[in-house]
């Protein structure tokens, strides 16, 4: 059991360490620039985003006691997409610089998730009703997004579609500098909830009887997850599947013990996203394939295979 954890951790660290050197040739004279200004910040960004998505997914699954719960199902991603699209479509292009899009995406993610968190905090709703409300709001938000796209001209629709695929493209360290503290604080706060979430293994009411403040735990996990994921999505666009697949991969290989599941979901999330990005670079060196396409393309069959293999 323990050697499996160590082995997986080493594998993840190895992927993170090797990734900057994967991809098109670094060239002769520009090698320093490509490696230091493009590849390394991109890998760091992928690591931060993957860790946040993986950990938040694992925490949400534990909180909702539901294997389908992810930041996407409680509306965080949909809210971010709506915010970003609103800026891309409504603000005349040229003015819609990247920081504005990011801010709007962040605001959208928070608005939707805090609505869900407020429902969860009322204490009256059962936790699965909260998840249903999240799915309903996700669908409604998606409908508004589609409506906006329908109204928009070709150029901004194209831009919006590009954004919604999820990209890790970085030049320099501006993004890393903004995102690292946010993600770090969010991940620490979520890991801090491990004991409360362990007590929830026997259901929320039993956890209450064991001394857990259910409303506070629900609100804190949802809100902190939304801030972390919202910040990631704001910068990189919605990256599909990481929050869903990574916790399941860890659960299936290392078991559901929270103390191992949470940190390993963060580490593996980082490695998984960086690996997907590196694979995309290696496969199509000049296309700059959006990493969201690779995570979905690689993750979906992998998860399907693992889940069905276990059932047989």
């Amino acid at each position, binding site marked *: 059991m323990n050697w499996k954890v160590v082995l997986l951790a080493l594998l993840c660290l190895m992927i993170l360490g090797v990734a900057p050197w994967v991809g098109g040739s670094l060239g002769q004279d520009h090698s320093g620039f490509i490696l230091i200004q493009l590849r390394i910040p991109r890998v760091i960004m992928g690591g931060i985003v993957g860790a946040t998505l993986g950990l938040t997914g694992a925490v949400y699954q534990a909180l909702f*006691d539901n294997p389908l719960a992810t930041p996407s199902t409680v509306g965080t991603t949909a809210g971010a997409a709506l915010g970003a699209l609103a800026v891309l479509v409504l603000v005349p292009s040229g003015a819609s610089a990247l920081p504005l899009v990011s801010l709007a995406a962040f605001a959208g993610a928070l608005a939707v998730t805090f609505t869900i968190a407020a429902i969860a905090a009322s204490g009256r709703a059962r936790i699965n009703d909260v998840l249903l409300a999240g799915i309903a709001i996700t669908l409604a938000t998606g409908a508004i997004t589609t409506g906006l796209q329908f109204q928009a001209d070709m150029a901004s629709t194209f831009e919006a579609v590009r954004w919604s695929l999820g990209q890790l493209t970085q030049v320099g360290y501006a993004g890393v500098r903004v995102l690292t503290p946010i993600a770090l604080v969010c991940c620490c706060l979520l890991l801090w909830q491990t*004991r*409360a979430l*362990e*007590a929830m*293994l*026997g*259901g929320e*009411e*039993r*956890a*209450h*009887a*064991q*001394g*857990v*403040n259910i409303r506070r735990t629900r609100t804190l996990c949802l809100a902190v997850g939304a801030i972390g994921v919202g910040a990631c999505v704001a910068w990189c666009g919605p990256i599909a599947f990481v929050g869903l697949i990574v916790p399941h991969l860890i659960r299936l290989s290392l*078991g*559901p*013990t*929270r*103390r191992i599941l949470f940190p390993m979901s963060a580490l593996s999330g980082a490695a998984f996203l960086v690996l997907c990005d590196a694979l995309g670079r290696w496969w199509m060196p000049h296309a700059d394939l959006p990493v969201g396409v690779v995570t979905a393309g690689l993750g979906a069959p992998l998860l399907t295979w693992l889940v069905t293999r276990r059932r047989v």
Partner: protein
Amino acid sequence: MSTGIQLDNLCVSLGQREILTDVNFSIAPGECVALVGPNGAGKSTLIRAMLGLVKPSAGSVRWAGTGVRSMRGQDRAAAMAWLPQHGIISEAVPVLEFVKAARFRFSETRAKSLAAARSALVSVGADHMESQAVSTLSGGELQRVMVATLVAQDAQLFLLDEPANHLDPAQQTAFYGMLRRQREAGRGVLCITHDMNLLGHLAALAGQGSGPQSVRVIGLEEGHLRFDLPLDSAALTEALSSLFGLSLEAVTRGGRRYFLPGESP
């Protein structure tokens, strides 16, 4: 200021329906109480109100003078531990981790929590299954592990909701033996049951306990408290008979009191 738990004119309504009406009783530290009544009498709701899981529509539930819904979670968990009727754990967590989770109320190192969880498992005779997954346990094994979580939580009063319901006779006897040891350690017990013959086991607990000796039987029917009598009182046979709508006969064998259905009407 009283110690233990005190219910004053407790009323609970769920939707339009009143589940509990003007329930009054108290449990002193170390006391053993059996809560009996037909299905749908409101027994489980009563326990949930004691834990602060449902809000009273009137009246109050207080532990040592403080309303249970305004207590800090950790303080409430130090007062009462709960064994719900349906314990479903879907995740394949190892038994030791599961029991360790019940140490939430303590601010302590992981090593200390694990040591406490281990000794809780030893006290219920389940230490050999510490690395087994909770989801693979049989009914009897799971109930043992559940009691270990209560022991690990180290609360003063155990609230048990039909704990022996799904156990076979040998497991039931073993289960009550386990409870007896907890009672000898000075813990209070409130046990819901509608199996009257299990009251005999509870009497055996009281005989050897160091706390207050008598077991009380509280009868609940349609949300009303019908009686609150010691197990050895002469009036109990009559009270139980009218509670369950059955004519019962008390039989004493080996120092234990059993209630058997008399002639059918």
